[in-house]
């Protein structure tokens, strides 16, 4: 953990740390503390008087059927994104890991979507599924299947899930490929010689040995789906139609920015903080173990 030989200067380390710590305190801890504090306050309709209301904001929040609906949307959205992005990436990584011709080229052609912003991914998907200008959206409507993600809530959820997952596959692909390449080939060969078929080898050897990578990626994908997909939803559906694609992050934004309800928005920030703290702790407990693996 620690170095044996260090420099003796007393003031210098503080100067080196200063920029990072100033930013951290002014723009991270102070606002986060305020978010927690505001969560226990309520402003009157004119924004003049502020009173301490204890846990009332939280009680109101969890008594609000619309908020519970948002929780449900978030669960559906996060599960969908994580499942699709992980399984697709695993299939592609397993195939790209085989010693076939052009494996390097496939890798290059599969990792670039990592660089696409979630909001830009959403715009790309407009051109696939928009009922008038989208390739598939128009084809579906021409074929007599009514498709309009601006009117149908389930279709809207499907399109935002697909767009968000599409962007995340390349990230998972890179990690699965690295994980596959670290599995000793001798283990697989031994199983092959013992007569295990490729599919059986995959489920009894490769998949269990990949489980640390998979577990890490599940956490990262959940964090991504929770916090980084705001742009996908804002560009595609704006939480609609009729709030069908409103996730926790989107609702917190709408309450703070458009409804200007600071207490309720802060209470939601606190809920989100708890989610991210839980996910980060799970992730780091796991990385501690991975170091030894």
């Amino acid at each position, binding site marked *: 953990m620690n*170095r044996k*030989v*260090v*420099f003796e200067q*007393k003031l*210098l*380390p503080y100067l*080196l*740390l200063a920029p*990072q710590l100033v*930013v*951290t305190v002014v*723009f991270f*801890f*102070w*606002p*986060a503390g305020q*978010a927690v504090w*505001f969560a226990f306050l309520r402003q009157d309709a004119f924004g003049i008087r502020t009173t301490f209301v204890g846990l009332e904001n939280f009680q109101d929040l969890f008594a609000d059927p619309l908020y519970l609906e948002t929780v449900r949307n978030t669960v559906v959205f996060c599960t969908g994104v994580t499942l699709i992005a992980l399984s697709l990436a695993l299939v*592609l990584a397993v*195939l790209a890991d*085989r010693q076939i011709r052009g494996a390097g080229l496939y890798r*290059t*052609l599969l*990792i670039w979507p990592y*660089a696409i*912003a*979630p*909001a*830009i991914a959403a*715009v*790309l998907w407009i*051109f*696939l599924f928009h009922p008038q*200008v989208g*390739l598939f959206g128009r084809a579906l409507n021409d074929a007599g299947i009514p498709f309009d993600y601006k009117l149908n809530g389930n279709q809207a959820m499907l399109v935002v899930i697909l767009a968000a997952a599409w962007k995340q*596959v*390349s990230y998972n692909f890179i*990690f699965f490929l*690295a994980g596959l390449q670290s599995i000793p080939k*001798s283990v*697989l*060969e*031994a199983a*092959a*010689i013992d007569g295990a078929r*490729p599919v059986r080898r995959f489920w009894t050897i490769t998949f269990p040995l990949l489980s640390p990578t998979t577990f*890490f990626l599940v956490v990262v994908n959940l964090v991504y789906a929770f*916090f980084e997909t*705001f*742009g996908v939803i*804002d*560009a595609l559906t704006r939480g609609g139609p009729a709030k069908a694609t409103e996730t926790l*992050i989107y609702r917190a*934004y709408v309450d*703070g*920015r458009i409804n200007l309800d600071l207490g309720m*928005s802060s209470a939601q920030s606190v809920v989100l*903080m708890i989610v991210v703290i839980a996910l*980060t702790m799970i992730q780091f407990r796991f990385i501690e173990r991975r170091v030894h693996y």
Partner: protein
Amino acid sequence: MSTTEATPGLALAEEAAPPERRAGADWVAHAVLILGVVLFALPLWIVLMGSTHDAATIGRGETPLLPGSEAAANYAAAWSRGTTGVPVGRMLWNSTVMAFCIAAGKIAISILSAYAVVFFRFPGRRLAFWAIFLTLMLPVEVRIFPTFKVVSDLGLVNTFPGLIIPIVASATATLLFRQFFLTIPDEFVEAAKMDGAGPLRFFRDVVLPLSRTNIAALFVILFVYGWNQYLWPLLVATSDEVETVVIGMVKMIGSESNTDWSLVMTTCVLALLPPVAVVLLMQRWFVKGLTETEK
């Protein structure tokens, strides 16, 4: 299992030609991979081709899959005027400044603080480390409105510092540099001390050159991270002077009835090209950086 141990020669032979290597399986692999590549490239192809046609073609819903003749006109129009009053050239410049400053800023402040934490002993060292570590749990999304208030109290709304500084602290970069610094042998530090080199000299002449690959890897990841910011600029950069291309692009599709779809596609291509180019050109460092920083 015992077969391989008894005959290592056999294992070597298998390395060259695994037993399941049948041409059929390879064809399936190629087919699925090509399908995957096409699935990912299709939307990109559509906007690329769409950006070479006029607005009417796309407005009619004929998603063209072959190049048209309007490329020069579209790119010139987008670059110099855009559709929302802000030229896309201007947005691209703003995004470049933001992405570059976020990447460079995060690397600079993280490498310095990691250096302090690893190469010095001082009261509060552990506290400083944990303070930095905690920022991992406070993404901008959960502290957005109070952070906006701080930025607005400092008079930094609609300025580049306001856009950049609140997201410039990076726990992941600090952790990566710390991890790497712990592997620098003690002998290097002893030798530097014996030669009378102080900590700043040691940093410049030894630590910085050794960190080059890590810096390159982090730069790619953080440049992409900076370029792709959405929620924070949406709130804090609302004037034309600091509008970024990702925000501007989404604004263009705001009023759908009279959207100029071909210019939207052109802008889309311009918005995604720089980060994709950075990732592809620096692919080797990028993959290394990603799998080693874990984020």
